[in-house]
C-alpha cells in the first residue's frame, strides 16, 4: 500500500493542479499587455509594505503620481518589505535592472551599499538612493529637508504643552533623526523656553507595540504632547487613549488619531520624482552633490516636505505664527539652524550670525539645549 498509495496521491494532485491551471491563461496575457516595452521603466525598492500609512506609502503615492504625470513612464515594478541586509537588497535591485528598469529608486538608508555595488555593474542605469551619503556617476543621493517642517511642528507643540514636557518617540540615533529632534526642540523653545523634549529610542523604524510602549512611558512621565520619528501611528494612538495631544509623522496621522494628532510633518516626493525622471530622460541630470553629500536636498520651498492639515484644536494664532515662520524659511532668509544655538551642556554650538552648513547638518550627532536624552 504505502508507497504506491503515496505515488498515486501525488499523481492525482498533480493532475488536479494542472487541470485547474488552464483557467489562468487569459489573465497572464492581459498582464503581459500591460507592460509595454516602449515605455521608460522605473523601479522602486521599499523597506515596508506599500500601505504602511507612513514612509513607504509616501514613496508609493509618489510612484503613482509619477505614472500619472508622465505617460511615457512605466513604474509598475516595485518590491516591498525588502530588509536592509546586504544579501537581499542587492539581489532585489539587480532583479529590477534585469527586468528592464532604467531608473531605480531605492528608498531606505540601508540600501546604500547595495545600490552603489549594483550601479557599478550597470553604468547605463540610473539609481537614486534616498537618505544616504554616497554618490556615483549613475547614482544620485536625494533627501528632503524635513527638519524645516519639524521646526514648524515644534512651534505647534510648544504652544500646546501645559506640562512643559513633550515626549519624542524616536527610531535610531542617526543624523536624520537627531536633526529632526533638534529642529523640533528649537521650534518648541522658540515659543515656550520652559518646555523640554524628552527622547526615547526604540531602535526600530516600525514596530507598533514597541512604539506604543515608548509613548506610554513618556506619557507616564508627564508628557502631554507626543511627537514621533516612527513609521506607525501607534504613538499617536497612545496619546489619544491618554487624552493627550500629538504630532504625527510621514503621513496625515490625524486620520488615525483625530483627537490627539494636531498636525504631521509629511513627505511629498511626487514632484521631485517627476522632475528627476524628466531630467534623466532629457539627459540633463547629474549626480554631483549640491547640498553636502547629497545630489538633491529639497525643502518646503520645493514642496517635498510640508505640514499635514491642522486639526481643529490648533488655535488660529498658532497657525499664523507657523505661516510666518514658514515664510522666513521659504524666502531663504533663515533656515532653523541659525545661531545662537546651545548644545545640551549649555555650550554655544553655533554663534549668533552663523549657521550650520549642509554638511554639518547631515553629520549632526549632538542634541540642542532643551532635549532630555542622549544622542546615542
Amino acid at each position, binding site marked *: *500500500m*504505502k*508507497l504506491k498509495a*503515496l*505515488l498515486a*496521491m*501525488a499523481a492525482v*494532485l*498533480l493532475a488536479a*493542479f494542472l487541470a*485547474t*491551471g488552464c*483557467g*489562468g*491563461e487569459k*489573465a*497572464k496575457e492581459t*498582464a503581459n499587455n500591460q507592460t509595454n516595452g516602449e515605455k521608460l521603466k522605473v*523601479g522602486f525598492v521599499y523597506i515596508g*509594505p*506599500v500601505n504602511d500609512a507612513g514612509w513607504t506609502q509616501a514613496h508609493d503615492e509618489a510612484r503613482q503620481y509619477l505614472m500619472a504625470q508622465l505617460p511615457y513612464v512605466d513604474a*509598475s*515594478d*516595485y*518590491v*516591498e*518589505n*525588502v*530588509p*536592509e*541586509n*546586504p*544579501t*537581499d537588497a*542587492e*539581489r*532585489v535591485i*539587480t*532583479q*529590477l535592472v*534585469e*527586468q528592464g528598469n532604467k531608473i531605480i529608486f531605492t528608498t531606505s*538608508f*540601508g540600501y546604500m*551599499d547595495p545600490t552603489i555595488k549594483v550601479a557599478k*555593474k550597470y553604468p547605463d542605469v540610473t539609481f537614486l538612493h534616498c537618505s*544616504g*551619503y554616497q554618490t556615483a556617476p549613475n547614482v544620485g543621493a536625494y533627501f528632503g529637508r524635513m527638519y524645516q517642517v519639524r521646526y514648524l511642528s515644534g512651534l505647534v507643540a510648544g504652544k500646546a504643552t501645559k506640562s512643559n514636557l513633550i515626549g519624542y518617540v524616536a527610531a*535610531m*540615533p*542617526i*543624523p536624520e533623526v*537627531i536633526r529632526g529632534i533638534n529642529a523640533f526642540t528649537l521650534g518648541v523653545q522658540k515659543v515656550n523656553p520652559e518646555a523640554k523634549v524628552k527622547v526615547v529610542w526604540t*531602535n526600530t523604524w516600525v514596530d507598533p507595540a514597541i512604539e506604543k510602549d515608548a509613548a506610554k512611558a513618556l506619557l507616564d512621565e508627564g508628557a502631554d504632547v507626543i511627537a514621533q520619528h516612527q513609521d506607525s501611528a501607534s504613538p499617536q494612538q497612545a496619546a489619544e487613549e491618554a487624552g493627550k495631544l500629538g504630532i504625527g509623522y510621514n503621513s496625515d496621522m490625524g486620520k488615525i488619531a483625530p483627537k490627539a494628532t494636531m498636525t504631521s510633518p509629511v513627505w511629498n516626493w511626487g514632484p521631485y520624482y517627476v522632475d528627476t525622471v524628466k531630467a534623466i530622460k532629457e539627459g540633463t541630470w547629474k549626480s554631483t552633490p549640491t547640498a553636502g*553629500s547629497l545630489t538633491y536636498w529639497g525643502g518646503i520651498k520645493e514642496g517635498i516636505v510640508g505640514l499635514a492639515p491642522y486639526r481643529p484644536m490648533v488655535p488660529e494664532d498658532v497657525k499664523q505664527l507657523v505661516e510666518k515662520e514658514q515664510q522666513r524659511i521659504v524666502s531663504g532668509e533663515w533656515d532653523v539652524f541659525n545661531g545662537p544655538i546651545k548644545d545640551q551642556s549649555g555650550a554655544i554650538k553655533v554663534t549668533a550670525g552663523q549657521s550650520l552648513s549642509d554638511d554639518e547638518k*547631515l*553629520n*549632526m*550627532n549632538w542634541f540642542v539645549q532643551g532635549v532630555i536624552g542622549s544622542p*546615542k
Partner: protein
Amino acid sequence: MIKLPGTNLLIEKKLSPDPAAFFVVPVISILLALLVGAFSLALSGRDYQQIYATMFSGAFGSTYGLSETIVKTIPLTITSLGIALAFRMQLWNIGGEGQIYMGAFAATWAALFFPVGTGWWTMPCMILLGMLAGGLWALLTAIPRAIWGVNEIITTLMMNYVAIFWVNYLVYGPWKDPQGYNFPLTATFPPEAILPTLGVSRIHFGLFLGLLLTVLMYAVVQHTRWGYEIKVTGESVSAARYAGINSKRNILLVMFFSGAICGLTGMTEVSGIAYRLQPGLSTGYGFTAIIIAWLARLNPFAIVLVSFLFGGLQVGGYIVQTSGIPSSMVTMLQGLLLFFVLGGELLTYYKISKAPASSGQDT
C-alpha cells in the same frame, strides 16, 4: 491505530519509516502547499501559474537567479551545519544568530583594527578569529550547562540579544565610520579582507568553505570516535555515562565547534557580502538553520540540499513581487510551504491502510 470515521481506512504508526517516504512525503507536501496557495491566489484573481513559474525560474531558472540562490544557500548551510552538530548531541543551540554576529564582529576587528594592519594574514585571521569568537560565545552557555546543568535553550537564546546589541553598540559608537555621516556602519573593508567571488556573480569563497565543512562534518560525525561519542551522548546520556564517555568535556567541545561554525557564517557574510559590519547583518539565519537542520535530519549533505531549497524559496519570493503580488501573499505562500513540509514530516511515520472487513462491520 486510528480508524478514520466513516471509512474503513486505518491510520497506523510505523516502527521505522519507509526510506522512500523520506522523499515522497516532502514532494507531496510541496504539491499540496502549492495547490492550497493556488486556490487562494486564484480567489484573489491572480494568475498563479505564472506566479509559480516566475518564482521557480527566478530562483533556479536563470544563471543569475541560481547564483543568488547559492549566495543565500551559503550562510544557511554553514549555520545549519553548526546547529546540527549541537543538535546531534541534543544540545539545543538556539544561539546561532548571536554566534553569527560575534563571528562577524571578530572578523571585522581583524579586517579593520588589526594591530599590524592588513596583509596576507588578514583573511586567515578573519576566519580563525570569527570562528573563535562564535565558539567562545557558545562556550559561555556550555560551561554553566556542563557544570550545573543550566538549560542551554534559554541561555543561548538570551545570548543572541547580547551579541546583537554588542554589534549595534559598536556600529553606533566606537566603530562608526568617521566618513560615514554618523550612520551606523563601519568603514568598508580593505581589499585583503574581502573574499574572492566567482566571476561577476556574488557567489563568494564561502561556498567552498561550506562544502568543505559539509564533507568534514560527515566524516567527523559518522566515522570518528568523537563523532560516535556525540551520537551516543545525544541518544542517551545515561548510556554515555555508563560507557565512560566524558559528557562534560563533550558538551564544551561540541558547543564550541557549533558556535565556531556559526561564527564562520558571520565572517563570510561580512567578508563576502556586506564588506563592512552593520546592523541587520543576518536575517535570522540562526533561526532558519534550526528548521533546516531538523528537516535535513541533521544529515550534512541533506542540509546543503535543504538550504538550497530554502534559499530558492526566499529568492523566488522577491521576484514574484514584481508580477504584482504583494509581499504579504508571498510570505503566505512561504508559510504554506513550510507548514505542509513540516506537517508532512509527521506523516512519514504513519501509513494508511484498509481495515479488515470483519472489524469494519463491527463498528
